[in-house]
């Protein structure tokens, strides 16, 4: 299976996961569940709000981050490492050296 096909499969999985999270968040907002979670802070259960808020944003961040990565892979845009120092080897050269058994 080519890298592009693998990326496409991952893209679909991530898209479905994101769609679920988006549906869940909109639904809970409309049902007033988010407001109830905010109220739980007043009764000493702030851990519920912390876990939910951070968990939601972390899940979105990770899923969206990987989703966008797979999008660029599927459209064929190659993302190479940046060479920050003049004496740095490009990523391809390191791979080549490792293949030839010259890596330390």
């Amino acid at each position, binding site marked *: 299976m080519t890298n592009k096909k693998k990326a496409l499969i991952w893209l679909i999985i991530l898209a479905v996961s994101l769609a679920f999270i988006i549906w869940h968040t909109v639904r809970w907002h409309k049902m007033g569940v*988010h407001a109830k979670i905010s109220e739980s802070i007043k009764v000493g259960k702030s851990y519920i709000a912390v876990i939910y808020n951070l968990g939601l944003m*972390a899940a*979105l961040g990770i899923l969206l981050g990987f989703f*966008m990565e797979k999008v660029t892979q599927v459209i064929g845009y190659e993302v190479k490492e940046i060479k920050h120092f003049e004496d740095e080897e490009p990523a391809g050269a390191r791979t080549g050296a490792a293949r030839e058994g010259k890596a330390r």
Partner: protein
Amino acid sequence: MITFPGIPGLEGVEISMPLLAFIGFTVGIVSGFIGVGGGYMLTPALIIFGFPANFAVGTGLAHIFGNSIVASLRHRKLGNVDIKLGGLMVCGTIPGIELGVRLLNWCEEIGLVDEMVLGASLAILSFTGAFIFWETRRSKRKMDEIIRRGERLPKDIFVSGISKRIQQINIPPLIYFPKSRSRISLWVGLCIGVFTGVLVGFMGVGGGFVIVPCLIYLIGVPSIIAVGTSLFQIIISAGFGAARHTMSGNVVIYASFIMILGACVGTQIGVLATRLVRGPSVRFVLGYSMFFGAAGIALKLASILSAEKVYWLNLTAKGFIIGQMFLLVGMILALVIMALMSRRGHHIPKWAESLVVKD
């Protein structure tokens, strides 16, 4: 328009959903490019569009937490994240955030939270922005000279000697960071971390607009590694700050959710643009963003201090905050376009040659 029924303190607050997503998108581009969370644009924007200051701070931090994860994942792919250095600074940031949040809650109790948050933002943005402008103009002149001599341009160059002096502070233990090729005392890293933490907790920012200049000028990290490392650090600092603000009831998670949907696209554009530019480009955009942020905040602060009697001040502040987002995005996209034109052999202005990477 969306409302937040049932959340005390937000009765009557209405905000447009596309506006929230657009704020996220533009802040995402800038955030991915210059390594800031974007809170110093986000917090005043949310205040200007009707959020009480404490909610603006907490909601902004929750958004910055999520968006920094998106940006860091991409920066890591590009080799821009020094995890060891970021980890050291985080150890100082976390206690700093606790101090900052307590300070903010105290300001809210005495009824001066808007003035204090905006005033502190104004002072720090003005000073840091002015220094960055001064240093980057000198660096660019040096790069222009290199071009005139026909020599190969480095990816980054900066003229401030502060980092060399800081690296000479030999209070053990000294730690070497191979990714950034810099060595500093553990205590220096922790002190910078505590300072940024206080700003995070108090101002509702990720701390990036202080972290990036500190990494570049105090520790001597190349600008684009400073961008990626800053965003990595902001995950931890903004996450801790968002947790702390959630416990104070200051986070509107639905607003953060909408903003990150816009930000995820903008962040990719901003991060990938760092492949096409040199260090001074990042610092110029950082300096401009601070200048515009300070000007917008000054207008809003003047409006608050005049007890909102001068209507045009508030209106001008709103226009400025929105306008600066467009301008910064325009600057970044202009740099990207010039870099792509240069790579295809087209002519670009002479002043831009030292700002973009041709190959």
